[in-house]
């Protein structure tokens, strides 16, 4: 089954997003879900640009809104496999209330977050998961806030849902976690820890 489009990915050489795209592709292929029943719903950001690289039904939504949009798809047609894909900015920042609401409802939406601790498509500003004190373009004096612990936050909102943090550089972990999430009914958050190859160097380490 070919889920990819003919569009050549535009990410930086060495970007972890290639691994996530490959993981989604392989997990869905191995699970043998009919292509027409897959809906991928993307947020805005580097990872959101993956929208163009697949050829399934897809929505490239507005920044922060991939979860309520995905929920609308799923509620109207529960037979579809609905996967929301975004970054730490969209899912933990602009759309954080949607993450909590979707987890509380335990809706059957799989949320994949490419968490590189930065806004990278906008050239490197602080994000909700940037380590405290990091000097970024928007926080030259150091970021003030402690980072969001998304897995703990989602578990607090609803202890019954799946929420996991995964090394975003490990292809097998990526594929296995997506397969597990998609084959388990209910809400799932998969937080993929990534490093931005271009703007990540400025983070506090």
């Amino acid at each position, binding site marked *: 089954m070919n889920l990819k489009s003919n569009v050549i990915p535009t990410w930086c050489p060495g970007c972890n997003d290639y691994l996530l795209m490959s993981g989604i592709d392989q997990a869905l292929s191995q699970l043998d879900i009919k292509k*027409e029943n897959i809906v991928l719903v993307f947020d805005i950001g580097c990872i959101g640009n993956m929208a163009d690289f697949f050829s399934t039904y897809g929505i490239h*939504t507005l920044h*922060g809104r991939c979860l*309520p949009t*995905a929920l*609308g798809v*799923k509620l109207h047609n529960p037979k579809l496999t609905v996967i929301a894909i975004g970054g730490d900015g969209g899912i933990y920042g602009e759309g954080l*209330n949607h993450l909590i609401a979707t987890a509380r409802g335990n809706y059957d939406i799989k949320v994949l977050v490419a968490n590189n601790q930065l806004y990278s498509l906008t050239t490197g500003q602080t994000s909700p998961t940037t380590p405290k004190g990091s000097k970024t373009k928007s926080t030259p004096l150091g970021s003030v806030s402690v980072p969001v612990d998304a897995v703990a936050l989602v578990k607090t909102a609803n202890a019954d849902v799946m929420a996991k943090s995964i090394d975003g550089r490990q292809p097998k972990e990526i594929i296995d976690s997506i397969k597990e999430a998609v084959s388990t009914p209910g809400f799932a958050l998969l937080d993929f820890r990534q490093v931005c190859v271009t703007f990540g160097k400025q983070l506090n380490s």
Partner: protein
Amino acid sequence: MGKYTTVKIAGPAGFGIKTSGQLLSEILLAHGQQLIDYSEYPSLVRGGHNTYQVTFSSRQVFSVFQQVDIFFSISPGHYQSHLSEFNSSSVIFYDEDKPVKSSKSTYISLPLRKLSEAIGSQNFRNTICLGVACFCLNLDPEIAKKIISHKFALTEKENLAAFDIGYGFAQQNCSNSRLIHESYIINHKSVLKLYDGNEAYGWGFLAAGGNFFAAYPMTPASGALHFLAQKQQSHHIQVHHPEDEIAAASMVAGAAFAGARVATGTSGGGFALMTETVSFAGVANLPIVFYLVSRPGPATGLPTWTAQGDLLFAVNSGHGEFPIIVLAPGSQQETFEFSALSLNLAAKFNLPVIVISDKTVGESGASIADLSGKKVKQIISSKPIPGTPSHEYLANSYEHDDQGYSIEDSATVKKMVEKRLALIPKILKTLPKANFYGTPDAKKLIVTWGSPVGAILQALEGQTDYAVLQIRSVWPIDPDIKKFFAFTKDITVIENNATSQLTSLLKSQFDFNPSKIILKYDGRPFFPEEIRQQLGINHKS
């Protein structure tokens, strides 16, 4: 008493002002009457000053009147702010500790607190008033009691007792104030029913196959959410109340992509949050209906009052340039029609459609023919639906090519912008035409949109000098409308806002120079008496 009778009930929130008012309206419907009602209430749950008024007649009613024929003050102190609404034929029932002396109107002491002692509760004062009203209006008490019994399952006994107390009081004390209405037609199966604009919106949504509604509560639009939420099981629809208006709009966007016929509803503040989705629907070609029920702004403004201050906001909502449709119903019946039509237009053109109403129509009841079983022929969107093999595509918020993939090259960008805008002439051909009332021989033209048309038509009853143009498709504007501006120079614009937004809109399209502009922006709707006064028409109805 003229051809129209107006009854008004006032008192603190929590005394069932609207409940008893609507019961009176139902009793009037069972007597073959037509009517419009109107409620005023502050943004609180108990106390304050609430009113319900209904104007009825054996002929069609377009608007409530400001002048009241029968008035009930359900608690002490609730008639004093209405003195300007009373005239020589008004009868005012009050419950004050001291008698009221007036040479202007008839005041009758109705000791509601004392009369309530026989029931053992002060909670039925409203139904006592209903008994008095039914006697004074010469309405059949048996029909009234049947309607009361039907309404109150748990407190039927107390309410019937309260009704009898009121009716008996009026028999003894009000025979001089009895209004003889000659044209009652007792009809046990009432042909007309009472619908407010929000309910009419809901019935229109169902009639045209609407099946997914998501909204966040906001007065005065919440009525549509409540109505449709109650219909989920009987009509197999989904209604959702998500975490905020942004989520509501995004949710219906997703459901529309999945093939649902969708709408969301809100007022100005909520719509402000939804405008990003208006734009998204515009570029991703998602058929979404936004039911916008205006109240006065800015910001939180006056939550429970009325205004037409969001016309230009609706027309210009959504960043970027793309076609949208904005329909403006002027009545509850039109709200039903435009609700159904909006789903079809959204599906036909795959774009956002806004139905802009206001509290005046949204929350006021009107007697209209039964809407409950109506069906409207559905236009189905041509978009592929997920689950269909070999038709996969991307709905994209980025500028994109025909397959949905993002593009940035000059030629394709230009092509896609032009492709979207090329829809406008096709849209114009399908939109509802303006309503023109009067003859082309009329010397004067009134131009309006939305709710004021009711008060205007009521004010102009019997006038042949005036014609009225009610613009119903406020965006895009039909270029042919200009022919109406040619036949007279005496043009008056009437709208319920402070800056005459319709004038601005028409000036942006036509050589439009109204000779007079009548505006109202105090949170209240227009009343026919005010319009007659402002137009200099003799005060007589």
